Each structure stands twice: as structure tokens, then as C-alpha cells.
């Protein structure tokens, strides 16, 4: 008798869990490593609000994210760039109609030591510094000191923006120092009055001096109105117009009170 009741309980439990799994929403998010920290933070908050939804997130780059959206192997594809025309053609071929959602802006600011007298720099001069063509601050009207160029590891999203918006696909010269995180760049610049580097806007503090680029100060406002040159929008793509949990998630991330607050706390510029 007792054995029997255990047996029945076990069956009931199994059924209960199986239906639970079948009912729970599963959301797959893939793509750009730049968007990854936003996606992670927002997904955690979303899962607290909606305990029945399970979200799995992975990186792999914008290209892989777009590919997964087109193939239908992910619900949401993250991208740090807009969809390419080739990808649109491929998507239409496969019967998909990718929909972009702009979720945040990435804004990278060139920084120097607070004692540096330079306030403004042009994109051309920044490029020349990072190519190793301008080597001394006196070429820019500063004191006669060698410029110490600090860059990021080539696989970071921050480097990607820099390469895209400043370097114009030219290579950063090998003599540039490499730091593995925004925090390490802040640390290195605040200790070196010859240094120039770049960090995400959220990492600015009083131990650094932010440079204006082409006369425009990098801020949330200049990023949103498009006048600040070293910034880019970040996207989430869905295969077609989203429905169900995917739509809920997109709405959550675009909500100024919820997702957009997390966008800001992950170090990016929110839309509102």
C-alpha cells in the first residue's frame, strides 16, 4: 500500500514537471558580445518578473547572431551593427523578415590624464595617434612629451567601435599598450600624464579628462542627437514581428522604467 502511494506520487510529480516544462516559455538570445552584458542584466530582471520564462543567452558575435535569426535557431539576435544587405537577401530567401529594435547606444570617449592641457582633438589626429604617426604631444600643441597610446584587446566591443569609427579599418600600431578592460584603462591613464586611451561613457570619472572630438563633447545628449562621432546604436533583431514572450521581452527592454535603466547600469547610453 505504502509502496503504491509512493509510485503514484512519483508519477504525479513527473507529469507535473513535464507539463511545467512544456508550459514554460523558452527564449534564446544570441549574438554580439557588446550587447551581451545588457542582454544578461535585462534577462535576469525579466526572469524575476516572469518566473515561468527561461532565457538562455550566448555570445558569438553580431554575424553569428544575424545568421541564427535568419536560420530561426534563436528568438532574438543581438547585433552591434545594422543588418547587411546580403543578410536581408538571405533572410527573404528563407522566408524571414528580420525586424530591428534599437535598444541602446554605445558611446566611446577618448580620455587623457587630468593634467593634460589638450581639450579637443579631431578624428584625423586620433587616428594618426593610434596609427603611430603622431608620437609627441607637441605635435598637437601640448608639451614636448611622448604620447603613450593605450588601446583595448582586439576582441572587445569597445575596440570594435574604435576600429570602426576612428581607425577606419586601419590597424592600431603594435606599440600601443593593451589593457584588458575599461577599468584597467582608467587605472593606467590616471597614473600616466603622457597617456591617451578610450573608455565607455559609463567609466568616466574625475581621475580622467574626457576629450571633445571635433569640438563635440561626448555625452548622452550628443550621442542621441547623432552629433558625437564615436558612437553607434545597438540592436536586437527578431525573425519576424515578435509575438508572445519575445514581444514581452522586447517591450521590457525598451521600457524606460525597467530595461532602459539596466542599459544605463551596464555602461551604455539608454534611448530615453
Amino acid at each position, binding site marked *: 500500500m505504502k509502496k503504491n502511494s509512493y509510485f503514484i506520487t512519483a508519477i504525479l510529480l513527473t507529469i507535473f514537471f513535464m507539463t511545467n516544462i512544456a508550459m514554460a516559455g523558452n527564449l534564446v538570445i544570441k549574438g554580439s558580445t557588446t550587447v551581451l552584458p545588457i542582454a544578461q542584466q535585462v534577462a535576469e530582471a525579466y526572469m524575476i518578473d516572469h518566473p515561468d520564462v527561461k532565457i538562455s543567452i550566448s555570445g558569438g558575435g553580431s554575424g553569428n547572431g544575424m545568421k541564427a535569426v535568419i536560420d530561426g535557431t534563436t528568438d532574438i539576435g543581438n547585433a552591434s551593427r545594422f543588418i547587411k544587405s546580403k543578410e536581408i537577401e538571405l533572410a527573404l530567401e528563407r522566408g524571414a523578415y528580420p525586424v530591428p529594435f534599437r535598444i541602446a547606444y554605445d558611446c566611446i570617449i577618448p580620455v587623457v590624464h587630468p593634467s593634460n592641457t589638450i581639450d579637443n582633438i579631431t578624428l584625423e589626429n586620433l587616428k594618426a595617434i593610434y596609427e603611430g604617426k603622431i608620437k609627441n604631444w607637441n605635435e598637437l600643441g601640448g608639451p614636448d612629451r611622448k604620447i603613450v597610446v593605450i588601446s583595448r584587446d*582586439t*576582441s*572587445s566591443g569597445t575596440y570594435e567601435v574604435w576600429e570602426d569609427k576612428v581607425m577606419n579599418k586601419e590597424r592600431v600600431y603594435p*606599440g600601443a599598450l593593451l589593457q*584588458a578592460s575599461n577599468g*584597467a584603462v582608467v587605472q593606467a591613464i590616471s*597614473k600616466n600624464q603622457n597617456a591617451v586611451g578610450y573608455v565607455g561613457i559609463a567609466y568616466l570619472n574625475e581621475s580622467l579628462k574626457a576629450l571633445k572630438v571635433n569640438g563635440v563633447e561626448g555625452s548622452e545628449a550628443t550621442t542621441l542627437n547623432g552629433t558625437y562621432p564615436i558612437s553607434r546604436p545597438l540592436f536586437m533583431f527578431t525573425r519576424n514581428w515578435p509575438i508572445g514572450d519575445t514581444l514581452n521581452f522586447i517591450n521590457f527592454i525598451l521600457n524606460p522604467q525597467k530595461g532602459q535603466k539596466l542599459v544605463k547600469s551596464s555602461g551604455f547610453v539608454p534611448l530615453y
Partner: protein
Amino acid sequence: MAIRRQLKEQWMRVFFFCFALASILILSMIVVFLFMEGLPIFSKVSVKDFLLGIYWYPTSDPPDFGILPLIIASLSVTFFSALLSIPLGVMTAVYLAEIAGRRLREVIKPIVELLAALPSVVIGFFGMVVVSPFLQDFFGLSTGLNLFNAALMLAFMSIPTICSLSEDAIYSVPVELKEASLALGATHLETIFRVILPASISGIATAVILGMSRAIGETMVVLMVAGGAAMIPTSIFDPVRPLPASIAAEMAEAPFRGDHYYALFATGIVLFFFTFLFNILADYISHKYRQVGAATL
């Protein structure tokens, strides 16, 4: 009864054999994995271009996978740290084993060994926040994150290894040798340099090589203080990027099983060969020049 005892004995043998096997198994699995993930890059670049190429641009289009600047950086950082750590480590060992009194020795030795207990990230942070600005001001350098700073920090890390192993070697020199030397009229200093050090040279050499092998494989310190410029250094105050720093900085975001990923694992293989070579060398020296008894000197 005797059979049961024998059976038990055999079980014990199997039991301990399994434990001994476990570490070998784990090591061989890691090595197989390392090669599986690293070798595919050589279908894209030749071994020669990989080892002797001077440009490391793994994410450019087209990419360049040349690790010569990284190899030179690793070797030079290790070399200069050895220049600092060998005299310091060995001299400390001599002092502790031969000159210091028993009580002083019992205070100093644990303190030196405590240096080994410092987490490498703490040493790296110290180098970054304290030593680097000091070097900038003192030498008037453009940056304090450079080869010299890294070598200095790595020397801190290898001194305890070198000191403690050398001290053991010096301490185990047979006392007859020392007594004979002193009886012949040699001073204490002469005894140390002409008798005790030659007698313990195999132990000291092993200690030095193990200390250097620790320095070449160290990651966190070089990532934080070496500067990270992937170019061939022309002075000891140039920033460099040693092999482990490059792997640690880039691995997290290299696309899984992409060329960059394979290239980083191949860099790991190169690093593995270096430490492997150091260990073989240490083993060889400690066997070949082993001091057996007092008669062989």
C-alpha cells in the same frame, strides 16, 4: 589470515595506483585537448609564419597571426626577472643556511616563503598602482607599464621558490665537507664559495629553473604590468606583451572554434613547450649533477 593480509595489501596497491594515475590522466587529457584546439590554426598559417611572424592582428581582415613579439616578450621578461631573482634568491638561501643563527633563520624563512603565498593579482596590482608611477617619475619614462616592471614583479614571485629550494640543497651538503674545508684553514667565506656552493649546485640549478618556469607561465602579473604592446622591445623600458597575457586578454571573447580561438590555443602549445623544456632541464640537471655522499666532490 595471511592470505587476507596479502589481499588487503594488494587492494591498497591498486587503490594508491588509481590516485597516482588520476593526475597523469588529467594531465594527458589537458594536453590532448590543448593540441586538438590549437593545431587547426596551422591549416591557415604555416608553423614558420606563426612562430616568426612579427604582426599579431587576430581580428583584422585579413588577420595576421605572428607571435614572434610575444615569444620574445616572454623570454626577455623571464630572462630579466632571473637576473634579479637568482642573486637575491641564492644569496638569501646561503645566508639562511650558513650564516644566520637558528633563531633568526626561523623568523626569516617563513617570511620569505610568505611571499609565495601572495596572490599574483595582488603583486600585479602593486606593480600597476605603486611601482609603475614610481618608475615613470624616477627614470622619466613615458610609461611605467613595461618589461622592467614586469621582470621586477616576476622576480618577487620566483624568489621564494628559488630561495627555499636552494636553501634545502645547501642545507643538505654533508657536514664533513664543510668541516674538512675549515680544518684545512679556509675561511667561512671561502668554504661557502669554494665548497658548499659547488656541492649544492645541482639543487640550486633546479631551484633556479623551477623559479624561471614559474615566471614564464605567470599570467596575471604580466597582463597587468607588462604594458601589452605586441612589438619587439628595443629597450628594457619598452612595453611588451608576453604569451600568457595575450591568451588571457583575448580568450574570453574570441569566437568559439574560430581562427582566433585556435591561434590562442596554439600560443598555449608554445607556452607549454617552454615550461615543459624548463622542467625537463631541471630534472636532467638534478639527476646528472647530483651530489652523492661526500666522496664525489
